[in-house]
């Protein structure tokens, strides 16, 4: 009886050990899954997008005219359209974001912070199609009337929306960067007789500079990949944004082109491959942007700058 119980116990223990071995193996595999998924995304974009470069001459592909029905696949207006909208968005969002981060971290009393932080999180949570719908129905008419443009659906309207959509990212990264500036810097500046205001702009913000650069990179990555909001408010005209008033005219981004046209193309057609090719460009762009941002963070961590 006793002996039996012992062997049962031993058996149970060895089974438990086996189960544990299996579980730990599964966890290890799951840990590496992220690498697997990034690779899979890259492979399938290549698989469907690479034929583009054999089917369409490079001169056509990087030409200035996007008329897929006539076999004209010039992606330049789309790339420049994305660039125009994104860069304008960051130019609006950067000063707003940094100022808000400084306000939240350095100036605002506790209760204000308790209100601002959740509000900014709410902004991050609003679906982009809802923001796009709001932009289309309410912001665009406002832009048209206040700027006197023929249509409210312009590159500027898109940039305005994108600026707000990238604000949560910029603010939270900039806040972390400000947070990481050692207290001794502030104490030193204050001891020299600087006011809080002088300390913030001449010591704290410059010390957090690389974090702010990271914030801009991540905001840029978020903005360039935004699809639905941009598609709903930019007017989607594939024209070269080379004139000065381009900002006040309709534009069309890479993301909006893929989203709008993918549903209508025949699988395996040239147009289909070109759209995947644009997806490939987008993937590589955001990959490089995020990699750069991540590397600055890693560098910082190694030097003991962050936290």
């Amino acid at each position, binding site marked *: 009886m006793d002996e039996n119980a012992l062997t049962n116990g031993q058996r149970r223990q060895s089974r438990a050990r086996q189960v*544990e071995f299996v*579980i*730990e193996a599964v*966890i*290890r595999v*799951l*840990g590496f899954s*992220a690498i697997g*998924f*990034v690779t899979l*995304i890259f492979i*399938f*974009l290549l698989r*469907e997008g690479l034929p583009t470069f054999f089917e369409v001459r490079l001169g056509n592909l990087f030409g200035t005219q996007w008329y897929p029905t006539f076999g004209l696949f010039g992606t330049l207006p789309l790339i420049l359209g994305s660039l125009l909208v994104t860069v304008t968005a960051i130019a609006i969002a950067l*000063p*707003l*974001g940094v*100022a*808000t981060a400084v*306000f*939240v971290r350095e*100036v*605002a009393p506790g209760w204000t912070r308790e209100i*601002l932080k*959740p*509000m*900014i999180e*709410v902004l991050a*949570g*609003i*679906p982009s*199609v*809802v923001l796009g*719908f*709001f932009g289309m*129905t*309410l912001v665009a008419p406002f832009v048209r009337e206040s700027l006197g443009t023929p249509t409210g659906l312009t590159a500027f309207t898109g940039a305005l929306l994108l600026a*707000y959509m990238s604000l949560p990212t910029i*603010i939270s990264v900039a806040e972390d960067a400000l947070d990481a500036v050692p207290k001794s810097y502030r104490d030193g500046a204050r001891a020299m007789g600087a006011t809080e*205001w*002088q300390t913030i702009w001449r010591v704290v913000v410059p010390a957090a500079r690389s974090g702010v650069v990271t914030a801009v990179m991540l905001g840029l990555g*978020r903005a*360039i*990949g*935004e*699809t639905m909001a941009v598609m*709903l408010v930019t007017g989607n005209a594939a024209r070269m944004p080379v004139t000065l008033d381009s900002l006040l005219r309709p534009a069309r981004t890479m*993301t909006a082109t893929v*989203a709008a046209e993918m*549903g209508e193309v025949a*699988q395996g057609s040239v147009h289909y491959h070109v*759209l995947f090719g644009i*997806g490939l460009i*987008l993937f590589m762009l*955001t*990959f490089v942007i*995020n*990699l750069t941002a*991540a590397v600055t963070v*890693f560098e910082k961590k190694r030097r003991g700058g962050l936290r």
Partner: protein
Amino acid sequence: MMDRYQVQRFGFILLGLVAVIVVAPILIVIAAIAVRGIGAIDWQFLTAMPRDGMRAGGIFPAIVGTLWLTLGTALVAIPIGVGGAVYLAEYARDTVLTRAIRLAIINLAGVPSVVYGLFGLGLFVLFLQLGTSIVAGSLTLAIMTLPIIISTTEEALRAVPTEFRTVSASLGGTRWQGIRRIVLPQAMPGIITGVILGLLRAAGETAPILFTVAAFFLPRLPQSPFDQTMALPYHLYVISTQVPGMPPENQYGTALVLLAVVLSLNVVATLIRSSYRRRREW
């Protein structure tokens, strides 16, 4: 000439104004959609099939479709995401490979949503021949959600003090027993917060489901996971751009329902996190 303290006072006021400029539009968006949409919402709008080319009737199939998609996303993303986070927080050492995993997660988080759509179309819909279906859409959304779930879960796990693990080990527990019985339960509120944040992102996304699941107009409920379905965000896109003569109150009503779903989940996540911060004993 202002002295430097006046400059400071002036500067602080300016910063406060900027904060208002940042925050006020958020309230305006929510208020504008709520005011214009509330009139459209009644029992019929929420529970009836769309009629008359979606210009009348309700949005029931879109609501059900979004529920299905979110559920499918949860089924796939939670085990992979939490498992991956357990590996990173509890097992991984700081090696080149671990660093590669972190880079991969950062990049997954940065992949544009429409590129996820292309990927889902290429892999799930065409290559694995799942067709445009709830399964294909859920898998696509799940991969998009992973980085959010992994990073929030890892943070929650790391917040559990090391002593909890050493005590478990000193009582003869194995590493996995310590994780399952001590660390995971302690980190659970943080994990749930992260999962909710990830899922609400999935519920609100349009671009990834454009080519993988969404049906333009399908006035019946999905019969199986391999069916197409309508979904709230895609429905809002369709009725605001593709349907001429759409009554605006129905558009705002749909936007309001979507916004309400997402924001209420957001509030739930925030509440769980803050009550947990207040209650924890370490």
